[in-house]
Protein backbone atom coordinates (compact mmCIF):
# COMPACT_ATOMS: atom_id res chain seq x y z
CA UNK A 1 0.00 0.00 0.00
CA UNK A 2 2.73 2.40 1.09
CA UNK A 3 4.93 1.18 -1.77
CA UNK A 4 2.20 1.81 -4.33
CA UNK A 5 1.74 5.34 -2.95
CA UNK A 6 5.47 5.97 -3.23
CA UNK A 7 5.35 4.63 -6.77
CA UNK A 8 2.39 6.90 -7.60
CA UNK A 9 4.16 9.94 -6.11
CA UNK A 10 7.35 9.17 -8.02
CA UNK A 11 5.47 8.95 -11.29
CA UNK A 12 3.62 12.21 -10.61
CA UNK A 13 6.86 13.97 -9.66
CA UNK A 14 8.53 12.73 -12.84
CA UNK A 15 5.70 14.10 -15.00
CA UNK A 16 5.35 17.31 -12.99
CA UNK A 17 9.01 18.24 -13.27
CA UNK A 18 8.69 17.94 -17.04
CA UNK A 19 5.91 20.52 -17.01
CA UNK A 20 2.77 18.36 -16.68
CA UNK A 21 0.40 20.69 -14.84
CA UNK A 22 -2.16 18.03 -14.07
CA UNK A 23 0.47 15.97 -12.24
CA UNK A 24 1.62 19.06 -10.39
CA UNK A 25 -1.95 19.72 -9.28
CA UNK A 26 -2.28 16.14 -8.09
CA UNK A 27 0.93 16.42 -6.07
CA UNK A 28 -0.34 19.61 -4.45
CA UNK A 29 -3.65 17.88 -3.64
CA UNK A 30 -1.84 14.85 -2.16
CA UNK A 31 0.42 16.83 0.16
CA UNK A 32 -1.62 19.95 0.84
CA UNK A 33 -3.08 18.89 4.19
CA UNK A 34 0.16 17.29 5.41
CA UNK A 35 2.11 20.46 4.70
CA UNK A 36 -0.59 22.70 6.13
CA UNK A 37 -0.57 20.68 9.37
CA UNK A 38 3.20 20.54 9.67
CA UNK A 39 3.30 24.33 9.33
CA UNK A 40 0.47 24.68 11.83
CA UNK A 41 2.32 22.54 14.44
CA UNK A 42 5.20 24.98 14.19
CA UNK A 43 3.40 28.32 13.88
CA UNK A 44 0.24 27.67 15.95
CA UNK A 45 -1.69 29.94 13.64
CA UNK A 46 -4.12 28.80 10.98
CA UNK A 47 -3.73 32.03 9.01
CA UNK A 48 0.06 31.85 8.95
CA UNK A 49 -0.15 28.15 8.12
CA UNK A 50 -2.41 28.88 5.15
CA UNK A 51 -0.16 31.64 3.81
CA UNK A 52 3.01 29.65 4.30
CA UNK A 53 1.49 26.52 2.75
CA UNK A 54 0.67 28.51 -0.37
CA UNK A 55 4.22 29.87 -0.51
CA UNK A 56 5.73 26.41 0.03
CA UNK A 57 3.82 24.99 -2.93
CA UNK A 58 4.80 27.98 -5.08
CA UNK A 59 8.40 27.23 -4.19
CA UNK A 60 7.84 23.54 -4.91
CA UNK A 61 6.47 24.29 -8.39
CA UNK A 62 9.36 26.62 -9.19
CA UNK A 63 12.05 24.23 -7.94
CA UNK A 64 10.56 20.95 -9.18
CA UNK A 65 12.52 20.83 -12.48
CA UNK A 66 15.73 20.84 -10.44
CA UNK A 67 14.77 17.83 -8.29
CA UNK A 68 17.08 14.96 -9.24
CA UNK A 69 15.76 11.99 -7.23
CA UNK A 70 12.00 11.65 -7.54
CA UNK A 71 12.00 9.06 -4.73
CA UNK A 72 13.10 11.80 -2.33
CA UNK A 73 10.24 14.14 -3.17
CA UNK A 74 8.54 14.01 0.25
CA UNK A 75 11.67 14.82 2.24
CA UNK A 76 12.60 17.45 -0.35
CA UNK A 77 9.15 19.07 0.07
CA UNK A 78 9.42 18.98 3.86
CA UNK A 79 12.83 20.56 3.60
CA UNK A 80 11.38 23.43 1.56
CA UNK A 81 8.67 23.77 4.20
CA UNK A 82 11.11 23.82 7.12
CA UNK A 83 13.26 26.44 5.40
CA UNK A 84 10.21 28.57 4.71
CA UNK A 85 9.13 28.32 8.36
CA UNK A 86 12.66 29.28 9.43
CA UNK A 87 12.45 32.38 7.18
CA UNK A 88 9.06 33.19 8.67
CA UNK A 89 10.48 33.19 12.21
CA UNK A 90 13.56 35.11 11.14
CA UNK A 91 11.37 37.82 9.62
CA UNK A 92 9.16 37.81 12.68
CA UNK A 93 12.10 38.26 15.05
CA UNK A 94 13.35 41.23 12.98
CA UNK A 95 9.89 42.82 13.12
CA UNK A 96 9.75 42.15 16.86
CA UNK A 97 13.15 43.79 17.26
CA UNK A 98 11.87 46.94 15.56
CA UNK A 99 8.56 46.70 17.40
CA UNK A 100 6.52 46.53 14.19
CA UNK A 101 5.24 42.98 14.48
CA UNK A 102 1.50 42.47 14.88
CA UNK A 103 2.14 39.09 16.45
CA UNK A 104 -0.62 37.51 18.45
CA UNK A 105 0.32 34.27 20.17
CA UNK A 106 -2.60 32.20 19.09
CA UNK A 107 -1.31 29.09 20.87
CA UNK A 108 -3.29 26.63 18.80
CA UNK A 109 -6.59 28.32 19.68
CA UNK A 110 -8.36 28.62 16.38
CA UNK A 111 -9.69 25.20 15.57
CA UNK A 112 -12.87 24.45 13.70
CA UNK A 113 -13.60 20.80 14.31
CA UNK A 114 -16.15 20.14 17.10
CA UNK A 115 -15.60 23.66 18.31
CA UNK A 116 -18.98 23.71 20.08
CA UNK A 117 -18.23 20.81 22.42
CA UNK A 118 -16.81 22.34 25.66
CA UNK A 119 -15.18 19.09 26.83
CA UNK A 120 -13.54 18.64 23.47
CA UNK A 121 -12.46 22.25 23.51
CA UNK A 122 -10.95 21.89 26.96
CA UNK A 123 -9.14 18.69 26.09
CA UNK A 124 -7.79 20.20 22.91
CA UNK A 125 -6.54 23.24 24.77
CA UNK A 126 -4.90 21.05 27.39
CA UNK A 127 -3.33 18.84 24.73
CA UNK A 128 -1.79 21.72 22.80
CA UNK A 129 -0.55 23.32 25.99
CA UNK A 130 1.20 20.09 27.02
CA UNK A 131 2.51 19.57 23.49
CA UNK A 132 3.90 23.11 23.39
CA UNK A 133 5.51 22.81 26.82
CA UNK A 134 7.15 19.52 25.97
CA UNK A 135 8.42 20.39 22.49
CA UNK A 136 9.63 23.85 23.48
CA UNK A 137 11.58 22.28 26.33
CA UNK A 138 13.58 20.15 23.88
CA UNK A 139 16.80 21.27 22.18
CA UNK A 140 16.22 22.29 18.56
CA UNK A 141 17.22 19.09 16.75
CA UNK A 142 15.52 16.80 19.25
CA UNK A 143 12.34 18.83 18.90
CA UNK A 144 12.47 18.81 15.11
CA UNK A 145 13.19 15.08 14.88
CA UNK A 146 10.47 14.25 17.41
CA UNK A 147 7.78 16.30 15.61
CA UNK A 148 8.82 15.04 12.17
CA UNK A 149 8.67 11.46 13.40
CA UNK A 150 5.49 11.40 15.48
CA UNK A 151 3.39 14.34 14.28
CA UNK A 152 4.42 14.46 10.62
CA UNK A 153 4.84 10.67 10.39
CA UNK A 154 8.14 10.69 8.51
CA UNK A 155 10.41 7.66 8.66
CA UNK A 156 14.00 7.82 9.95
CA UNK A 157 15.43 7.89 6.42
CA UNK A 158 13.04 10.66 5.34
CA UNK A 159 13.92 12.73 8.42
CA UNK A 160 17.63 12.26 7.70
CA UNK A 161 17.09 13.45 4.10
CA UNK A 162 14.92 16.37 5.21
CA UNK A 163 17.42 17.61 7.78
CA UNK A 164 20.48 16.55 5.76
CA UNK A 165 21.83 14.57 8.68
CA UNK A 166 22.88 10.94 8.81
CA UNK A 167 20.44 8.36 10.13
CA UNK A 168 22.41 7.52 13.27
CA UNK A 169 22.40 11.21 14.28
CA UNK A 170 18.65 11.33 13.74
CA UNK A 171 18.18 8.20 15.86
CA UNK A 172 20.31 9.65 18.65
CA UNK A 173 18.21 12.85 18.70
CA UNK A 174 15.06 10.77 18.65
CA UNK A 175 16.25 8.55 21.47
CA UNK A 176 17.02 11.59 23.65
CA UNK A 177 13.67 13.20 22.86
CA UNK A 178 11.81 9.97 23.70
CA UNK A 179 13.69 9.59 26.95
CA UNK A 180 12.52 13.08 27.97
CA UNK A 181 9.03 12.27 26.74
CA UNK A 182 8.90 9.25 29.06
CA UNK A 183 9.84 11.51 31.96
CA UNK A 184 7.18 14.13 31.17
CA UNK A 185 4.04 13.05 33.04
CA UNK A 186 1.64 15.72 31.68
CA UNK A 187 1.63 14.84 27.98
CA UNK A 188 2.38 11.24 28.76
CA UNK A 189 -0.81 10.84 30.83
CA UNK A 190 -2.92 12.77 28.34
CA UNK A 191 -1.99 10.39 25.56
CA UNK A 192 -3.09 7.28 27.39
CA UNK A 193 -6.70 7.96 26.50
CA UNK A 194 -6.05 8.71 22.86
CA UNK A 195 -8.44 10.69 20.63
CA UNK A 196 -11.89 10.98 22.29
Amino acid sequence: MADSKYQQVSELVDKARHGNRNSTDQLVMLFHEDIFRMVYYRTRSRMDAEDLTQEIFMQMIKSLPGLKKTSRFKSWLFRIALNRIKDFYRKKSILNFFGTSTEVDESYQEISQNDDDPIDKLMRKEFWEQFRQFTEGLPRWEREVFILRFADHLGIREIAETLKKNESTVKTHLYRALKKFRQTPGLHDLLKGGVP
Partner: protein
Amino acid sequence: MKSKTIHLDEDQLIWSVVDENDLAPAVRNHLSSCPVCQERKRHFEQELNNLGNMTKAFSPLPREKPVPVVQIFRNWLRPAFVSGFALVLLIMGIWWSSPFPVSQENRMTQAVGEMEDDSQLVVEIRVVEEYALPDLYMDIAGESYGYFGDEFLEFVVPLEENQIRSTGSARPVRLIHLIS
Protein backbone atom coordinates in the same frame (compact mmCIF):
# COMPACT_ATOMS: atom_id res chain seq x y z
CA MET B 1 16.33 -19.68 31.54
CA LYS B 2 17.85 -16.69 33.27
CA SER B 3 17.90 -14.63 30.08
CA LYS B 4 14.09 -14.81 29.85
CA THR B 5 13.66 -13.10 33.22
CA ILE B 6 15.86 -10.10 32.35
CA HIS B 7 13.47 -7.78 30.57
CA LEU B 8 14.42 -4.78 28.49
CA ASP B 9 15.46 -1.82 30.60
CA GLU B 10 14.13 1.69 29.91
CA ASP B 11 16.90 2.63 27.47
CA GLN B 12 16.55 -0.61 25.53
CA LEU B 13 12.81 -0.13 25.40
CA ILE B 14 13.25 3.39 23.96
CA TRP B 15 15.81 2.09 21.44
CA SER B 16 13.38 -0.62 20.41
CA VAL B 17 10.92 2.13 19.45
CA VAL B 18 13.57 4.21 17.69
CA ASP B 19 14.84 1.24 15.69
CA GLU B 20 14.60 -2.35 16.86
CA ASN B 21 17.43 -3.38 14.54
CA ASP B 22 19.86 -1.30 16.56
CA LEU B 23 19.40 -3.46 19.65
CA ALA B 24 22.08 -5.97 20.51
CA PRO B 25 21.21 -9.43 19.09
CA ALA B 26 20.61 -10.90 22.56
CA VAL B 27 18.21 -8.11 23.51
CA ARG B 28 16.44 -8.41 20.17
CA ASN B 29 16.04 -12.13 20.69
CA HIS B 30 14.60 -11.53 24.14
CA LEU B 31 12.12 -9.02 22.78
CA SER B 32 10.96 -11.34 20.04
CA SER B 33 10.13 -14.03 22.59
CA CYS B 34 8.97 -12.07 25.68
CA PRO B 35 5.28 -11.09 25.76
CA VAL B 36 5.89 -8.73 28.70
CA CYS B 37 8.46 -6.68 26.81
CA GLN B 38 6.40 -6.85 23.63
CA GLU B 39 3.42 -5.46 25.53
CA ARG B 40 5.52 -2.64 27.03
CA LYS B 41 6.79 -1.75 23.59
CA ARG B 42 3.31 -1.92 22.06
CA HIS B 43 1.94 0.32 24.82
CA PHE B 44 4.68 2.89 24.29
CA GLU B 45 4.13 2.90 20.53
CA GLN B 46 0.40 3.25 21.06
CA GLU B 47 0.99 6.40 23.09
CA LEU B 48 3.09 7.84 20.30
CA ASN B 49 0.43 6.89 17.77
CA ASN B 50 -2.09 8.68 19.96
CA LEU B 51 0.14 11.73 19.89
CA GLY B 52 0.12 11.65 16.09
CA ASN B 53 -3.64 11.11 15.95
CA MET B 54 -4.33 13.91 18.43
CA THR B 55 -2.12 16.46 16.69
CA LYS B 56 -4.03 15.66 13.51
CA ALA B 57 -7.50 15.61 15.10
CA PHE B 58 -6.92 18.82 17.05
CA SER B 59 -5.59 20.76 14.08
CA PRO B 60 -7.80 22.88 11.87
CA LEU B 61 -8.19 22.17 8.19
CA PRO B 62 -7.12 24.77 5.69
CA ARG B 63 -10.14 26.94 4.85
CA GLU B 64 -9.43 26.83 1.14
CA LYS B 65 -8.71 23.92 -1.13
CA PRO B 66 -5.40 24.01 -2.97
CA VAL B 67 -5.45 26.30 -5.97
CA PRO B 68 -4.58 24.65 -9.31
CA VAL B 69 -1.18 25.52 -10.73
CA VAL B 70 -2.62 27.56 -13.59
CA GLN B 71 -4.63 29.59 -11.11
CA ILE B 72 -1.63 30.07 -8.82
CA PHE B 73 0.41 31.51 -11.67
CA ARG B 74 -2.52 33.60 -12.85
CA ASN B 75 -2.86 34.99 -9.34
CA TRP B 76 0.85 35.62 -9.28
CA LEU B 77 1.06 37.07 -12.79
CA ARG B 78 -1.84 39.50 -12.43
CA PRO B 79 -0.33 41.58 -9.62
CA ALA B 80 3.06 41.25 -11.33
CA PHE B 81 1.59 42.69 -14.53
CA VAL B 82 -0.18 45.51 -12.65
CA SER B 83 3.00 46.30 -10.70
CA GLY B 84 5.03 46.29 -13.92
CA PHE B 85 2.59 48.62 -15.62
CA ALA B 86 2.59 50.96 -12.61
CA LEU B 87 6.40 50.94 -12.65
CA VAL B 88 6.46 51.90 -16.34
CA LEU B 89 4.03 54.76 -15.64
CA LEU B 90 6.17 55.89 -12.71
CA ILE B 91 9.34 55.89 -14.81
CA MET B 92 7.57 57.85 -17.55
CA GLY B 93 6.31 60.34 -14.95
CA ILE B 94 9.80 60.80 -13.55
CA TRP B 95 11.19 61.17 -17.09
CA TRP B 96 8.79 63.96 -17.96
CA SER B 97 8.99 65.87 -14.72
CA SER B 98 12.56 65.17 -13.77
CA PRO B 99 13.97 67.83 -11.45
CA PHE B 100 17.61 66.88 -12.01
CA PRO B 101 20.13 69.48 -13.31
CA VAL B 102 21.17 67.40 -16.30
CA SER B 103 17.69 67.33 -17.70
CA GLN B 104 17.29 71.05 -16.82
CA GLU B 105 20.19 71.71 -19.19
CA ASN B 106 18.53 69.55 -21.76
CA ARG B 107 15.34 71.49 -21.32
CA MET B 108 17.20 74.85 -21.72
CA THR B 109 18.81 73.59 -24.91
CA GLN B 110 15.45 72.40 -26.09
CA ALA B 111 13.85 75.81 -25.28
CA VAL B 112 16.60 77.71 -27.12
CA GLY B 113 16.13 75.46 -30.11
CA GLU B 114 12.39 76.05 -30.04
CA MET B 115 12.92 79.81 -29.82
CA GLU B 116 15.24 79.71 -32.83
CA ASP B 117 12.68 77.72 -34.72
CA ASP B 118 9.98 80.25 -33.73
CA SER B 119 11.97 83.28 -34.86
CA GLN B 120 12.85 81.57 -38.14
CA LEU B 121 9.16 80.84 -38.64
CA VAL B 122 8.26 84.50 -37.92
CA VAL B 123 10.81 85.67 -40.52
CA GLU B 124 9.36 83.27 -43.04
CA ILE B 125 5.83 84.53 -42.30
CA ARG B 126 6.95 88.11 -42.77
CA VAL B 127 8.59 87.28 -46.07
CA VAL B 128 5.43 85.55 -47.22
CA GLU B 129 3.32 88.52 -46.08
CA GLU B 130 5.44 91.02 -47.95
CA TYR B 131 6.39 88.97 -50.95
CA ALA B 132 3.42 86.78 -51.55
CA LEU B 133 4.41 86.28 -55.17
CA PRO B 134 7.78 85.06 -56.35
CA ASP B 135 10.13 87.68 -57.80
CA LEU B 136 9.29 86.63 -61.37
CA TYR B 137 5.61 87.58 -60.94
CA MET B 138 6.54 90.81 -59.23
CA ASP B 139 8.70 91.71 -62.24
CA ILE B 140 5.74 91.03 -64.56
CA ALA B 141 3.47 93.18 -62.40
CA GLY B 142 6.08 95.95 -62.57
CA GLU B 143 5.83 96.88 -58.94
CA SER B 144 6.97 95.96 -55.56
CA TYR B 145 4.37 94.68 -53.09
CA GLY B 146 6.41 96.14 -50.29
CA TYR B 147 6.17 99.67 -51.49
CA PHE B 148 3.24 102.10 -51.83
CA GLY B 149 3.76 105.72 -52.80
CA ASP B 150 3.02 108.39 -50.20
CA GLU B 151 0.31 109.79 -52.41
CA PHE B 152 -1.48 106.48 -52.59
CA LEU B 153 -1.26 105.97 -48.83
CA GLU B 154 -2.52 109.50 -48.17
CA PHE B 155 -5.48 108.71 -50.36
CA VAL B 156 -6.32 105.47 -48.53
CA VAL B 157 -5.48 106.56 -44.97
CA PRO B 158 -5.43 110.38 -44.63
CA LEU B 159 -3.37 111.88 -41.83
CA GLU B 160 -5.20 113.46 -38.88
CA GLU B 161 -4.00 117.00 -39.51
CA ASN B 162 -5.32 116.99 -43.01
CA GLN B 163 -8.83 116.35 -41.77
CA ILE B 164 -11.43 119.16 -41.18
CA ARG B 165 -13.80 118.74 -38.32
CA SER B 166 -17.19 120.34 -38.59
CA THR B 167 -18.38 122.13 -35.50
CA GLY B 168 -20.56 120.02 -33.30
CA SER B 169 -19.79 117.01 -35.28
CA ALA B 170 -17.35 114.36 -34.33
CA ARG B 171 -17.55 112.88 -37.79
CA PRO B 172 -14.43 113.65 -39.80
CA VAL B 173 -14.92 115.17 -43.23
CA ARG B 174 -12.46 114.30 -45.89
CA LEU B 175 -10.55 117.27 -47.32
CA ILE B 176 -10.59 115.79 -50.76
CA HIS B 177 -14.42 115.84 -50.83
CA LEU B 178 -14.58 119.47 -49.73
CA ILE B 179 -12.24 120.52 -52.50
CA SER B 180 -14.29 118.73 -55.09
